[in-house]
């Protein structure tokens, strides 16, 4: 920039005298001789043109100069004290003498990891080893269809389509910043560095988050690499165990890894032998873990409407919502996300036992304290210190039926269960009614195009689906996708964990169908934000599309449904959570399912729940805030960073202060009756 500036100034200095000359000559010419009139004319014409192009140039030049001047000032003026960031936890801890101890492995979640192109179609020429996902996303705008084609996986196998290889970026750069100004791990990494971490004891286990967990090993050997990396770091750091920090979906990816690594080689495991985890892992510090899935994944698969599971929407909201492109864009997105197995891993696990049935749900009476608070005190500061009397006042009529994850129409979401239509979805046929003569809109693959309108209507008639029956709905709507993905993921609860069938890899990422490894000294943490309304169940409607295009997504979230309180807004019901993961999913396992010696945790490793109350940034200057509890922003939360650093530097859970709970997670867990 400065060099250009300098260059221009140089040119300018050589030109100014000239222009000054011309003007001066004009001066002298007017009173003088006749033969100069020919010389005057072109100059006059020039002044005529001047008003148009030249003034543009002038204006632009003026703006540029002003801009550069400001930029220069901005760069040269020291940051005023009030804008200076408060001391980072890393600096403070380093002064307290906290030093790097255990090597650290970071496991990113879905969406935040970068993906780059290794082999592509002709339309992606010049993008070799450039990021398709993450970074500035400029390619979406430039060649959207090409981009979609390259990010989609094969709809049959869930692996690469022929001739396309898109791979995860490696190293810390994979997920430090999601896009240039939107940090994911960067703040945490910087704080780690302050207490002495560097490349040799800090590793980012990036993986292709579109694939099913087993396929990351089949295609890229990501699990083997992670194993070898942990072993190496264990040895090169003087036989110190490793602290693992997974985020979001990374938490269940790492659960999968824990089982994989101890399973013998012939059974498709890593062959580390039992005791591998006990030997190599000190603690697993899950940040915002989606242990039991997120309801958002359901809406995402049904109608591509999850609010931020696919950031794609947030990136181009105008594009998605404009009526012109709407038909195309959402269809394309649903097609792309249906080809990603990993989203299926985030569907709610544990069925009605965890998420509640048609009539009752664990959170039912603990709700809607947001509403009052939001209107009274927008800052949400003393969320849970509010006296309980408010809560009880608010709980007026019937308990909200959160168990109905998908309900068609507001009535269906509130009616007593006896009045709902008792449709057995498994018996419905999805025969394509050929009389429905509309043609598919494009060549893109969406299984909706194979469904007849009648069956769609039947599915949606006065029905509500719970965490168990919602799978029937999904299987009905997208049979191929579910068949493909359910070979990789399972969402039930194990009756008998010793059943040999649970040796199959599809159970490994479900904490309710696996045992934790035999590692009594290992520690399990669950760190997550609370105090933000989080989607828990949805009210749907049939989309009233013109019907021109058969592959239209037939269901929409009924955005017009708003309740009296904030718990029902825009067609979604909300509970406490971190904006993406409800408390029940993030906290239940550590608060109850694994607490003490249970059948899921036979060796009785210690578990800790640490919640961070959300506090929105006080001003715009604070950017995303240092006390946020939101799903991704929490990685910049100073409290959380301090906890993670202390664990990495050798502190145990007890030294941190054990549990730290603000939400009702303990009460909610009490209500969930599963055999432990």
């Amino acid at each position, binding site marked *: 920039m400065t060099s250009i500036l300098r260059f*221009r100034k140089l*040119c*300018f200095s050589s*030109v*100014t005298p000239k*222009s*000054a000359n011309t*003007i001066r000559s*004009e*001066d002298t010419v007017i009173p003088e001789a006749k033969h100069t009139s020919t010389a005057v004319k072109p100059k*006059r014409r020039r*002044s005529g043109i*001047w*008003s*148009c192009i*030249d*003034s*543009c*140039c*002038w*204006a*632009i*030049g*003026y*703006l*540029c*100069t002003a801009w550069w001047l400001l930029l220069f000032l901005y760069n040269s003026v020291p940051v005023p004290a009030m804008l200076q960031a408060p001391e980072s936890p890393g600096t403070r801890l380093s002064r307290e003498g906290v030093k790097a101890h255990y090597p650290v492995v970071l496991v990113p979640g879905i969406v935040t990891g970068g993906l780059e192109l*290794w*082999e592509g179609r002709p339309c992606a*020429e*010049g993008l*070799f*080893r450039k990021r398709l996902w993450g970074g500035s996303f400029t390619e979406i705008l430039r060649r959207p269809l090409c981009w979609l084609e390259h990010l989609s996986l094969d709809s049959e196998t869930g692996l690469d389509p022929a001739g396309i*290889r898109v*791979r995860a970026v*490696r*190293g*810390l*750069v994979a997920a*430090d910043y999601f896009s240039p100004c939107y940090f994911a791990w960067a703040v945490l*990494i*910087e704080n780690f*560095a*302050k207490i*002495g971490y*560097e*490349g*040799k004891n800090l590793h980012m286990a990036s993986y292709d988050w579109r694939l099913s967990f087993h396929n990351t090993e089949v295609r*890229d*050997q990501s699990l*083997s*690499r992670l194993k*070898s*990396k942990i*072993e*190496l770091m264990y*040895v*090169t750091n003087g036989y110190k165990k490793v602290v693992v920090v997974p985020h979001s979906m990374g938490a269940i990816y790492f659960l999968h890894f824990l089982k994989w690594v101890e399973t013998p080689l012939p059974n498709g495991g890593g062959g580390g032998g039992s005791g591998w985890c006990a030997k190599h892992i000190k603690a697993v510090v899950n940040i915002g873990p989606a242990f039991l899935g997120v309801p958002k994944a359901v809406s995402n698969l049904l109608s591509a409407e999850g609010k931020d599971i696919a950031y794609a929407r947030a990136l181009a909201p105008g594009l998605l919502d404009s009526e012109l492109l709407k038909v195309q864009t959402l269809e394309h997105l649903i097609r792309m996300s249906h080809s990603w197995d990993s989203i299926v891993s985030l569907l709610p696990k544990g069925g009605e036992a965890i998420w509640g049935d048609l009539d009752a749900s664990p959170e039912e009476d603990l709700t809607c304290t947001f509403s009052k608070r939001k209107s009274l005190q927008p800052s949400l500061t003393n969320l849970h210190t509010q006296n309980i009397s408010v809560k009880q006042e608010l709980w007026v009529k019937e308990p909200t039926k959160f168990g109905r994850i998908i309900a068609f129409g507001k009535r269906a979401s509130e009616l007593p269960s006896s009045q709902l239509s008792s449709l057995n979805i498994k018996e419905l046929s999805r025969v394509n009614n050929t009389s429905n003569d509309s043609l598919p809109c494009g060549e893109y693959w969406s299984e909706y195009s194979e469904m007849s309108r009648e069956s769609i209507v039947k599915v949606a008639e006065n029905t509500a689906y719970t965490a168990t029956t919602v799978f029937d709905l999904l299987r009905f709507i997208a049979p191929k996708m579910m068949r493909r993905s359910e070979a990789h993921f399972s969402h039930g609860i194990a009756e008998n964990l010793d059943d040999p069938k649970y040796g199959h890899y599809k159970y490994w990422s479900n904490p309710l169908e696996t045992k934790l490894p035999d590692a009594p000294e290992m520690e399990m943490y669950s760190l997550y934000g609370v105090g933000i309304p989080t989607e828990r169940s949805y009210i749907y409607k049939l989309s009233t599309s013109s019907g021109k295009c058969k592959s239209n997504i037939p269901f929409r979230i009924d955005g017009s449904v708003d309740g009296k309180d904030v718990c029902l807004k825009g067609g979604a019901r909300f509970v406490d959570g971190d904006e993406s993961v409800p408390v029940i999913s993030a906290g239940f396992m550590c608060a109850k399912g694994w607490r003490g010696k249970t059948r899921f945790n036979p060796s009785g490793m210690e578990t800790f729940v640490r919640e961070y109350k959300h506090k929105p940034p006080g001003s715009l200057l604070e950017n995303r805030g240092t006390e946020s509890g939101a799903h991704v922003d929490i990685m910049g939360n100073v409290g959380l960073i301090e906890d993670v650093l202390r664990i990495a530097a050798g502190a145990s859970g007890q030294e941190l202060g054990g549990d730290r709970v603000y939400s009702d997670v303990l009460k909610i867990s009490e209500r969930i009756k599963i055999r432990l």
Partner: protein
Amino acid sequence: MPLIHRKKPTEKPSEEEVPDDEDSQKKPHESSKTHKKSSGGGVDKGKWSCVDSCCWFIGCVCVTWWFLLFLYNAMPASFPQYVTEAITGPLPDPPGVKLKKEGLKAKHPVIFIPGIVTGGLELWEGKQCADGLFRKRLWGGTFGEVYKRPLCWVEHMSLDNETGMDPAGIRVRAVSGLVAADYFAPGYFVWAVLIANLAHIGYEEKNMYMAAYDWRLSFQNTEVRDQTLSRMKSNIELMVSTNSGKKAVIVPHSMGVLYFLHFMKWVEAPAPMGGGGGPDWCAKYIKAVMNIGGPFLGVPKAVAGLFSAEAKDVAVARAIAPGFLDTDIFRLQTLQHVMRMTRTWDSTMSMIPKGGDTIWGGLDWSPEKGHTCFGKKQKSNGTRGEDGENSVSKTKPVNYGRIISFGKEVAEAPPSEIKNIDFRGAVKGQSVPNNTCRDVWTEYHDMGIGGIKAIAEYKVYTADAVIDLLHYVAPKMMARGSAHFSYGIADDLDDPKYQHHRHWSNPLETKLPNAPEMEIFSLYGVGIPTERSYVYKLNQSPDSCIPFQIFTNAHEEDEDSCLKAGVYNVDGDETVPVLSAGFMCAKAWRGKTRFNPSGIKTYVREYNHSPPANLLEGRGTQSGAHVDIMGNFALIEDIMRIATGGNGSDIGHDQVYSGIYEWSERIDLKL
């Protein structure tokens, strides 16, 4: 930004038209009006000519710039290629595309080992002045910081004088992953072309790995500080096992060649000092080592670099800012700073010529004797080799053995006429020639006039004497360095002292591993004049702290002379002379020798340099220059054929253009 500005012109004119109608309104900066008035009133002309025309001009430039930028972006990506093809005729397919058509597929995992200078370094912990540079590149990339805060940069890039490790409070680490050395600076490829071609036949990061290391450290220290060797071992093991047991192909470049020699000894040595991989580790995991431009026996350039910081690109620092370094105002400081910085880097000492007079020649002989430098002629007809050897040179034979000589006469005089006055015992003297140099640390300020004179009076230094010279000139640095590197020839390789790690990177003091199936290639460019020995003079200038300088006025009238600007050149790749790159594979390791007890097959593959025909070709696809050779299609094809399962005889055994065999014959070394 362009978006914002492009909108502006549409708004502005409309604003400006309004005051045209209502003349009563006056805006002082309204240029269009002022100009219009100039025909009548002419009062505001003075104002216009100054700021406004400036703005106008900047605006004009901006608009054209954006317009061109827009055109450039709108242009299809294949356009430059199309133009090039139109001018030079159809280009050959890149080797990746060609071999893919032949049906070759990725097979063996490939490991790259970058050389000195080309790997990126980033900041992990720094002093106050480096605020905001966390995890930003200090080395590689745009080098923006060199200009912004040069002293801060030098401070962070330097290592500790005593230990050769991090100074307190500063941690600069190697960038890891393929990005570490794919591009050195934007647009200046190093490994990128090779990577792109390998990707064509199915390679990706799971079977391609860049073993980046901190190239400033001595080899053993990379393990001590960063465990780089352990990481490399673990990665090779992992890649071999995940690629169903197919052995790895190693591709080191430049100093990476020595680094990998060190690795091969380290990995088989027992645990405390070595990697504990056992005596057959290399046989189990390595298929081939394809050394690109390997300075097996060191480079004379390293001597000049250490002696007077004047090597042309051992420290590319100079090339990056040539104007900056050569301006007289900055010179006295800059060179000193560069010297001080490079002297803290142990790795530069790994490249000091090895093997002494036996390899590099004595006072009166050198292996390359009789080599003639045909300079331009060679380049034009492109045929070299035998006719170069046959034609009797008219010029006086060059005494390449004299790596440093003081004065041109001395460089040419017969050995009997040179009177050496031994400098080794000379008192360095206490008087400091120039006090201004004090704040910049080089060991020259410990040396008085007496010492400097003694050095100059010794007149001529051969490869052996050069090492003594460096010991004398920079005792601290050499003391640090000789704990990590050694430059001799082993008499008895079984002597237990050769188990120390300082010998591991010297091919003349180690045996190759016991791996009869392994293959070692030496791939390098020839046909470019390469520095071989120097003519020095005392630096008379009172400002300079470095008392010696290359005598750049020393040259012959004859155009064919090897002496140019104080430097005698031989054949090579611009950095590494043929002798250093080729000798080991051409002779010392050929067959079963004491350096190669298991008889590993060796191949010498030379690539004749032909400069790019025109500017459009960039750095050329047939270059033989030290770094540009990584874009040489023939070399890439050879590497790919080996990586896809070929062996040395599949790619045609040796391929020799230079006089390497003849020169190797002249070297009398027990094998």
